[in-house]
């Protein structure tokens, strides 16, 4: 059973005169994986930012489960079930890998304002964190400081933190960028697994076509901030808009 969980109505943001997201109306259903594609600077990340509340909305509304969350703060939206991973890695650099994930789970468990318990005594939280790390194959690095991780591993941790958050709506922003060909599948498999659980809503920004082809139920195309196409993957991919503005000429023709 799938129902609409997240909906944007005429969502718009302007930076000075520049309309980065231009009246985008779109609905997302549970159990559905929507890929968002578009040229660089099309407004994909900004669209995410508007949904998760990172930047204030100029016009329009965001609804979650029928509730208007346009004015809600980032952390409130997170509590309501919107979670995201960032395009540019964004972690707690001087804490360990484990601590990074633990912090997320601890917030889920609403333990943040516990002043007098000992943090390390909450073993159920540590256990969950370790199991998440295991899933993304970072278990062996759990005691490393994040700043010492290679780029690819930081990307994996970014994904791990989103999975640890376990929100209703997952937003991945180019999760595999900079990941090597043998590592990327680990993350993609995880996303596929989430999708299989049916009640998750997944939004995925990706530039790699093969990934989109295998994972996406639906594609929306943003172009110059506006919604340029929305529909079945194969159909959208074949359209002129996408071919011309986005794919460019095939690499081999260069």
């Amino acid at each position, binding site marked *: 059973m799938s129902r609409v969980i997240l909906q944007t109505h005429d969502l718009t943001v302007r930076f000075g005169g520049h309309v980065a997201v231009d009246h985008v109306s779109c609905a997302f259903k549970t159990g559905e994986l929507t890929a968002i594609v578009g040229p660089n600077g099309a407004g994909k990340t900004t669209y995410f930012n508007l949904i*998760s509340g*990172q930047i204030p909305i100029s016009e329009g509304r965001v609804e979650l489960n029928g509730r208007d969350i346009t004015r809600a*703060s*980032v*952390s*409130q939206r*997170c*509590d309501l079930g919107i*979670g*995201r991973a*960032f395009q540019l890695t*964004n*972690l*707690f*650099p*001087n*804490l360990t890998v484990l*601590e990074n994930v*633990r*912090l*997320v789970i*601890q*917030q*889920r468990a609403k*333990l*943040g*304002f*516990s*002043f*007098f*318990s*000992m*943090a*390390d005594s*909450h073993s159920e939280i540590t256990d969950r964190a370790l199991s998440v790390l295991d899933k993304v194959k970072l278990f062996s690095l759990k005691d490393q400081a994040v700043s010492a991780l290679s780029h690819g591993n930081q990307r994996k941790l970014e994904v791990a*933190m989103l999975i640890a*958050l376990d929100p209703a709506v997952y937003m991945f922003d180019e999760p595999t960028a900079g990941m090597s060909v043998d590592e990327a599948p680990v993350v993609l498999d995880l996303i596929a697994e989430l999708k299989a659980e049916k009640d998750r809503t997944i939004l995925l920004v990706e530039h790699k076509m093969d990934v989109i082809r295998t994972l996406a139920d639906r594609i929306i195309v943003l172009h110059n901030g506006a919604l340029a196409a929305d529909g079945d993957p194969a159909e959208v991919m074949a359209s002129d808009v996408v071919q011309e503005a986005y794919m460019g000429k095939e690499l081999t023709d260069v």
Partner: protein
Amino acid sequence: MIVKLLSGDTPRSKILGAILLMILVALALAPFLFPGIRSVDTAARICVFILLVASYDLMLGYGGIVSFAHTMFFGMGAYGVALASTHMGRGYDALIVGAVAGAVLAAVVAFLIGLFSLRVRAIFFAMITLAVASAVAVLVSQLSGLTGGEDGLNYQIPRELTPAFKFGGEVMGVKLNGKLLNYYLVFGGSLILFLVLLRIVNSPFGRVLQAIRENDFRAESVGYRVVNYRTAATCISAAVAALAGSLYAIWLRYVGPDTVLSFEIMVDILLMVVIGGMGTMYGAVIGATVLVVAQNYLQELMEVASNSVEGVPLLPQLLDADRWLLWLGILFILSVYFFPTGVVGRLRAGK
């Protein structure tokens, strides 16, 4: 048991552990180990400053919040006791009312400042606290009818806490009098509150603070309401600072702007935190001890040094006891140079 008292946060370095133990013993037995008015006074100051600096470390080292208003909170506690003792007359009720009122006021003011300005950038928060603190200092100086202005207040505390109260004779050559009781009140109070702080920084709350210090943007986006956490940290820190001020006021039986509100004390606190090691709590112990001792005894040391180099050109002038500040300054620089992560950080790294 000990580990539990320390909230699982052990010194994690043998040398550090040994030093801390030494300081603890020295402070616990100060009146007997170092009899003499001045040395006990120094010990009491060390206790108060350990607590004050630890409370600052909660905010700065763990929360990453730079505030210049810490002496203001310190002062609120001190003036609380002073004013209560002045107006309610000498008595324990005055001490308690003063201390509680001071702590509550400090927390409320911290809350208001936090609500207003913790949203802005760190450096601006620092400037706003500086502004508020100096406005309060002006206020204290202006309301001289109430606060004694620049001259401060002298007041009476319960007789049992003053040298005039004698019980028993002497133990190990130390007179058993109210001053001794007063010292142990300061020592005990500081110790308990320090352990409480240690517990707080090792709680889930403490971890969140660290995360916010690292990356507040990210903390917000995994669902922590950053402003609330920062405000809470500021309030706790302010309240504890106020309690430290109350202890100081009980010990000194005098408060005045130079003693509890001046910017110099703020600088001392910063220095103690950094020399000791930020974000470690134990750094407060080391930093406060080193600095208070230096401030009190460097001059004497230099007197000796200066006399021993008499006849050498310029050196005696530089070593003149009146130039102690010069050497304290050099000490500042050297300590930041050689202990970039503080003494505690250094000891832990080299374990």
